[in-house]
């Protein structure tokens, strides 16, 4: 009985956060802000479903399943990478270097450094190393 309530609670939490994440996609005004909604609110959405699945497997089926832990691990590895790809694409297409804060070093953000510039700097670095 307690376990059933716990599993149901996890499923409800998961559903609510999934919904909030999707709602954020519609509500927030610009692409960078929209990126925040799915990368975060969804983590708990998926996490809740996975915890519910583990509890069900363990207490109702009587077997222990590691797959949920694996899904969590792979999700944590892939979510930041996709987030970074989307952000960089956005920088390339819709922003200029002047929209961003300075880098605090003498080279620009990697997205805005042209190949010629990079070659020149790296050639100079190699020359000074010799």
């Amino acid at each position, binding site marked *: 009985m307690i376990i059933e309530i716990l599993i149901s609670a996890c499923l409800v939490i998961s559903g609510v956060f999934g919904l909030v994440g999707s709602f954020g996609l519609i509500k927030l005004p610009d692409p960078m802000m929209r990126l925040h909604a799915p990368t975060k609110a969804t983590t708990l959405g998926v996490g809740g479903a996975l915890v519910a699945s583990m509890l069900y497997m363990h207490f109702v089926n009587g077997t222990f399943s590691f797959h949920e832990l694996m899904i969590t691990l792979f999700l944590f590895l892939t979510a930041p990478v996709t987030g970074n790809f989307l952000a960089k694409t956005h920088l390339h297409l819709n922003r200029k270097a002047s929209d961003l804060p300075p880098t605090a070093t003498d080279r620009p*953000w990697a997205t805005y450094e042209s190949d010629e510039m990079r070659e020149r700097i790296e050639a100079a670095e190699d020359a000074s190393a010799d």
Partner: protein
Amino acid sequence: MLRKILPHPLLTLTLIVVWQMLVNKLTLGNLVLGGILGLIIPVITSPYWPNRPRLTSVPGIVAYVLLVIWDIIVANFQVAYIILFKANPTIKPAWISIPLELRTPEAITVLAGTITMTPGTISSDLSADGRSLLVHCLDAPDPDAVRDDIKNRYERRLKEIFE
């Protein structure tokens, strides 16, 4: 000699454990297959890990992982609150530039991943020389506080783990 067969003992162990978890059934056959994978993959991929850092502090890693999981849970509630209850014009997004003290690429990767997974921040770009990180905040009335928070909370701990 041992270094030739096991160039990366931790990776070997991780691969064996992950393989067991993927097949979800502990038998001798699976253990042998996991062992073979754990021996071959590190040898094949070792050219891609030229100067990998030594991870010394295991308690430090465990503490860091727990801290990040806790922060992710908090982050979910904060972002949900912003989405549901804040009117769009009152949300103040900001770009911030974080000067990095970390130098190992692995440590910077972990920091960037952590920033993306935690409260209202996404790491978007790295400066061309890898010395500062560009972060977008969903709602940051005080960008300097966010920068200091990231430096104190995550970067300091990662510096202890990796360097």
